[in-house]
């Protein structure tokens, strides 16, 4: 990535950092009004909520970190998730990238 690093990358990474810092704030604010999405409302209306199961164990369940408080856990989850998607997304982009050896 370093050999052709685009000039917009540092600003994009700074924007990502700001978003991760905002995650705990928005999480707290959403908690103040109660968190319910239409999917949850549909599940409640049809009595499906009791059928929800968890297959496997997530490392950061519900975007939290066991042993950490809500805001800290949310921030750590935001940083880890953002970094992982950045790496995997860029990796996929690189895998699907043009063949610079002249295959094209």
């Amino acid at each position, binding site marked *: 990535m370093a050999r052709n690093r685009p000039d917009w990358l540092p600003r994009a990474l700074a924007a990502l950092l700001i978003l991760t810092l905002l995650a705990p704030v928005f999480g707290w604010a959403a908690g103040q*009004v109660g968190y319910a999405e239409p999917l949850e409302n549909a599940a409640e209306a049809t009595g499906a909520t009791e059928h929800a199961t968890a297959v496997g164990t997530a490392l950061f369940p519900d975007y939290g970190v066991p042993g950490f408080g809500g805001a800290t856990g949310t921030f750590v989850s935001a940083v880890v998730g953002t970094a992982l998607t950045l790496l*995997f997304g860029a990796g996929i982009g690189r895998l699907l990238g043009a063949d610079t050896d002249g295959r094209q």
Partner: protein
Amino acid sequence: MHIPDGYIDLPLALLFGALAVVVLSVAAKRVNGEISDARAPLLGVVAASIFAAQMLDWPIPGGTSAHFVGGAFAAILLGPHLGALCVATVVTIQALVFGDGGLVVLGANVFNMAVVEVYVGYAIYRLLVPYGEFRAAFVAGWLGITAGALTAALQLGLSSAFQYQLLTTLSIMGVGHLVLGLIEGAITASVYRYLARARPDLRPNAAPEVSA
């Protein structure tokens, strides 16, 4: 819109998982070898932005909250095929690392958010772009997320956990996301307009190799 395990009957989960694999395979084939070195990091940055933006739950007085999903945004900025791969990456990491969305139903969640929302959003954008990019991006974000939600409602309403109450799931999720989708549309259009003005070189027509 992330469906947990147990909500969708197994045959439906497998069917939509297979459909997602087929569409994403075709998408990967369509863009394989066509992304320049300079644009490769953009896929990662857009994916990471969508992940981080999805963690921002916008509180709405009255007991609900909404968050950006980003399918139409990814499609407009990256083109539909890369957009689908981008959102699929986000949804997969959310399920595997954070338990947001089930593992058995991962394919269905990918289908709803990375296939339906991305391709429907992109089709709407292309249809409306002659009337203005901002308007087109807004409607694409708005109706793209609604289409994804309706597909999820279809899967849920045809499953035993929801007692096959298809009309109930379609109405609650359809109307809910039709309203919440206005926020999705506003964010999609605003961020795209900002990027289009600040960095026109990132627009799809500036890099036709990642467009449809």
